[in-house]
């Protein structure tokens, strides 16, 4: 009787991870995380670079007079 009570007291019921992630699904994520993480990082930087250029372009387009004044 005491053992189960102690067990419940030491390991309180947790609401975490109530669904089974599945062993195969778990392992696959570990395998693909490197590749997909790397391509995600490249994508992020690429977006940043592109937005940098498009912002510059936009600025130029927004202020066409400014360009002529400075040139």
């Amino acid at each position, binding site marked *: 009787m005491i053992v189960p009570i102690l067990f419940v007291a030491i390991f309180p019921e947790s609401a975490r991870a109530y669904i089974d992630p599945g062993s195969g699904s778990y392992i696959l994520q570990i395998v*693909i995380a490197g590749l*997909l993480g790397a391509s995600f990082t490249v994508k992020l930087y690429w977006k940043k670079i592109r937005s940098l250029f498009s912002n510059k372009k936009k600025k130029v387009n927004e202020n066409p007079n400014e360009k002529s004044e400075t040139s």
Partner: protein
Amino acid sequence: MKKVKLRSSFRDLSGFVFEKEGRVLRQVNKVYKKDYDLLISSGLYNELVSNQLLISHSELGGNLAFEKSISYKVIEPKKLDFISYPYEWCFSQLKDAGLLTLRIQKLALKHGLTLKDASAYNIQFYKGRPVFIDTLSFEKYHEGEPWVAYRQFCQHFLAPLVLVSFKDPRFTKLLRVFIDGFPLSFVSKLIPKRTWLNLGLLTHIHLHARSQSYYANKKIVKKKITKVGLRGIVDNLESTLKSLSWNPEGTQWAEYYSFTNYNEEAFVYKKRIVNSFIDTVKPKIVLDLGANTGVFSRIASSQKIVTISVDNDPAAVERNYLESKKNKEEYILPLIIDLENPSPAIGWMSEERTSFIERRPFDLVMSLALLHHLSISNNLPFDNVADFFKKVGRFLIIEFIPKKDSQVQRLLTSRKDIFGSYSIDNFEYVFAKHFRIIRKEKIPASERVLYLMCKK
């Protein structure tokens, strides 16, 4: 004060949903206290609700709790007009629901939380758009943990969408059979070999299916993955989902209005009569059966009347949904429902997901250009049809199409006419047993007649 625990709310120990005097309440259990507080204090809840991604709720006093001893809080989410299930959604509805789930996961990770499940049943359509309804699906993200709901996401969203995109739109209906989404091995077998060349489908479907079968019943060593890796997986799922498409053009019913028995004048007149019938009834919620692309549903929904617009043709429902999305319509909900076999109650003890017919009563049911399909294609006697309409709604707008109409003749081309009782006189006689006929209007330049009836 009667409280009833919802039969679908048992899996997650974080809390559950119960009904009390017509209100839908959610008990948050003590065991979920930390995660609930983090959802609120991190700012995630506010960001999700202000972007209409998560259903908002108000916190109520603890004395309303269903089980006080384990209760931390009781919350009352905004009430939805109508509950629908993934096996009733068209391709784009399921895709939008999947993309919403991923967007929420991305925002959750930004705030230091993660989704602990990715069930399609966590999404409902509210005011024309998908919204996440399970407030207790969030938990603290611990660096190094993979996404616990990855398998579920692939099974509930990616797999059915892939099957529609590469095979057939009718596959979504099969979600009724697979309540936890499609087994990935099933999908991997069915889709074309060329999908092995698509990085997203190769990993999330084919390799995923093989990894599941290889590691089934094997003990695994748990390793960590970086947050960037996790974000990479979510991002790749998103781009894979976005790349899936399905073109609904060219099916029989989606093109229906281009070959009906109406000239434009009669069509306009029919719309006007339907409108005046709706004005008479002043319904709050309408069910349009055999709605096709929702032309007549929109007479109701454009007047801010919640209208559930159902059809059995996935292409018609897809076009209906895309139009509602394009026009940001808030009051129409297109769904795929086969009237000859409407969604039954399913799940544990057949009580988890309610049947379509018993989900909620409608003030008004519309059955336009439908009766001949039920009576002739499905051999249903008028009595049985009247029984069905009586069961789902109070008022009824019904169109009678006589046998000599070309649409009825088309149904009889390949079969013997055993429908001697299919006449307007018999129709009125049988329906008058169940309904009081309030109005009867003949559509000019056609043989068709529209009725407004009220349940006796």
